[in-house]
Structures are given as C-alpha cells and as structure tokens.
C-alpha cells in the first residue's frame, strides 16, 4: 500500500465492530474516546508514562497513546467498559471497591486493564509480580498499597494485614 493520510479501519472493541475513517496521525486513545465514544480509557500524561490509557490490543496490554489508530486496523481491543459488560462487576473490580483501591479514580481504568492482563498471565501473582505488573501505571492518590491488596484479593489470595 502506498502512503496515505486517511484510511478506513475496522476495529472490534469489547465485542462490537466499528468501522471509521481516521486520519493516520490519530492516536488510538483518541479513536477509542472521541470516535467510538468509549471514554473509560483516560488520557493522563500523553507521554507514555502514566498508563491511564492502557487497553488490551490483540491480547497484549498497551498504552493506547503510543499506538496509531490506523495500526489497530483489523484488531480486537478490550477496554475498561468491556469488564462489566453484563452490568456486574468482575471479581477484580469488586476487589478494587472492597479494598478502597481508588480515590479520584482517574488511573483506575488503566490499573484495571493492567491487572486484568497480569491475572490472565499469572493467576496467583506474588506481591512483587503485582508491583511489576502495574509498574506502567501511575496513581497519585492511593500510594499503591490498596491497589496491590485488591489484585491480591482478586487472585483468591489472602491479603496480609499491615496493622
């Protein structure tokens, strides 16, 4: 294919197929938020550091501010909206609520997607593995402890008391 500045792409997001014409300079996060109107994924830093825009692209966790929308043509994407698709929280989401793993909530969609990807690969992660799995996601509220606790609980492991 010769170079173009606009292209029609087809992307499946949370089980629904979307076909849109996009500018090739469009970042995937803006396609998801502004073209498809799934605004759960957030733009935090826009520099690839904070992870608030994390989504699962063809089974792999990525920061959607560092992928072009056109690159996702033909791909399958999971965003935070896909987690409670039937209106019922996933075990991970419930654990975030139970363990107060969010305060302002801005980082939460990215945290949930990173933790979802981690638990698929490592169903019973150690504390170190959880911290390493969430390394690409920044939270400025919680200090991370409660997030690690929530992921621990969601994996069916006992959460150690810090009292």
């Amino acid at each position, binding site marked *: 294919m010769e170079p173009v*500045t606009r*292209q029609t792409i087809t992307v499946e997001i949370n089980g629904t197929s979307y076909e849109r014409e996009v500018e*090739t300079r469009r970042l995937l996060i803006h396609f998801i938020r502004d073209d498809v109107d799934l605004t759960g994924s957030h733009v935090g830093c826009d520099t690839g550091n904070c992870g608030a825009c994390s989504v699962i692209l063809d089974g792999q966790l990525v920061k959607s501010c*560092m992928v*072009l929308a056109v690159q996702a043509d033909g791909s399958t994407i999971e965003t935070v909206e896909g987690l409670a698709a039937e209106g019922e929280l996933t075990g991970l989401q419930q654990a975030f609520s139970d363990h107060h793993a969010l305060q302002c909530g801005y980082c939460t969609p990215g945290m949930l997607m*990173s933790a979802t990807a*981690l638990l698929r690969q490592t169903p019973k992660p150690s504390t170190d593995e959880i911290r*390493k799995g969430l*390394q690409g*996601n920044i939270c400025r509220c919680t200090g991370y402890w409660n997030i690690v606790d929530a992921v621990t609980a969601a994996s069916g492991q006992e959460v150690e008391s810090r009292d």
Partner: protein
Amino acid sequence: MLLREVEYARPSSVDEAVRMLGAHEGARALAGGQTLVNVMKARAASPDVLVDLNRLAELREISVSGDTLELGAMATYTQLLASSEVEVARPILAEVCGLIADVQVRNRGTIGGNVCSNDPTNHLPPLLVALGAEMVILGPDGERTVSASDFFLGVYMTAAGPGELLTSIRVPAGRRDAFEAITLGADGTCIVSAAASLVEGGVRVAIGCVDAVPILVEPAAADEAAVRAAVGAAGLEPPADVHASSDYRRHLAEVVAVRAVQKASAAS
C-alpha cells in the same frame, strides 16, 4: 495529542519497506513506536512518512544457528523475555529486556527500535557492544553487516542511514555476562549503565550514559583494580544533568563497571 499530519504506509514485505524508505525523503521506519510516537508528539521528530514495520512477521523471528543467535529487529522485549532460544544462547538479553520500562512498553518496544533510536540512556546499545553483536542492515544496494561497536555513531545516530533498515542482530552464544546500572527508580531511566562480558581471554565492558555512544573498555583482568584502571584510563567526560554531575557519573561508571564484571565472573 494531535500529531503533525503524517503519511502512513504498511509495506507487505521487507523489500517493499526498504523501497518506501528510499523513495520518500523524510520517511522513517515505525517500529514499536514507544519512542518515535512520543518524540513526534513533542515535534522533536517530524517524519513525513511512517513506514510501519509491525506486520512484517519475518522481522520478528528469533533463531539459533550454530553458535549464533539471530534476533529479528522487530522482536519485542516481551518476545525476548519468553524466548527459549534467548534463554539457552544468551540469557543476559532477556534479563536486560526485563529491566526496560514496564509491561506495556515491553509488549510494543523492539530491540531494533531501541538500538536505532540510540538514546544514550538506552539499555541495549552498551549491552550489544559488550556482547560483540553484529547488526544486519538492508539497503537499496543489498545487505551489509556492521559490528555493534561501529554501529553507534552519535546521539540518536547510527550506521543505518537514510533509506536503510536494520533487519536483524546477530549475537554469539555465551553466558558469562552481566548488566548493572544506576537508575531513576526501579527499572527507570539509566543514569549510568555498564554491560560486561567475559570472553575467552578477555574482558569487555561497555559503559552507557557517559558519552554519545557506548564506551568500550577492555580491562587486562576481571579484578576490581584492573577494571577501575581501565575505566579511569578511558578519560571519560560524561555529560552533567539534573540527576548527576559529570564527576559523579565518572565515579558511577567505575562502580557499575566493577559490579558488572564481578557479576559476569560469577555467572555460569
């Protein structure tokens, strides 16, 4: 963020990619995009045409033939971490890829992108120099190989010129290697790094973050005094920034070089 308008092409073969890179002035190869997309946001790079390599499966292959590990330039850090070939032939590569940034970046970022961006703080340039890797570059006139020591030319500059494409990296098999760095936070950007490799009859240490390109020193022996002497004799004049003064970086260079050599000596 809205990028400057850019043309996009998705070649269906490596040859087509090279043709596109040569046909358009201002064309740039798009590897994992974990550096390039960000510098495009900042307008620090403004390519006119992006030649996306992500669907070229042949550039992602990892294979071993004889004593040589061949890594496709588009192999991701995550791929190297999971590769049984890498684990058997040169495990330090997987170990170091596991130190780079975070899961998301490791899933997209590629070894070819890491070396071709040649940011002086990147992990892989000093590592590949220490390991004695060879870079395979394809251009309109065919293929050529360049040693890693000759590949890195300056900050963000490599021997892969306009119209050329790094296609693979060949690494000799071996296990007596180590990488040590002082970083900004766990697995963060390197302030100073050193990769050491003990090869038959010699010690190779490549130091990162102290110059535009990795600095190779070859201590006479694998003991602390010899390593300190060799690093001292290299006459390093590291850059200063908010994280470390030039003197402090020079000090750290000796420290991480000694640590890397000691760790490599203990590796089996």
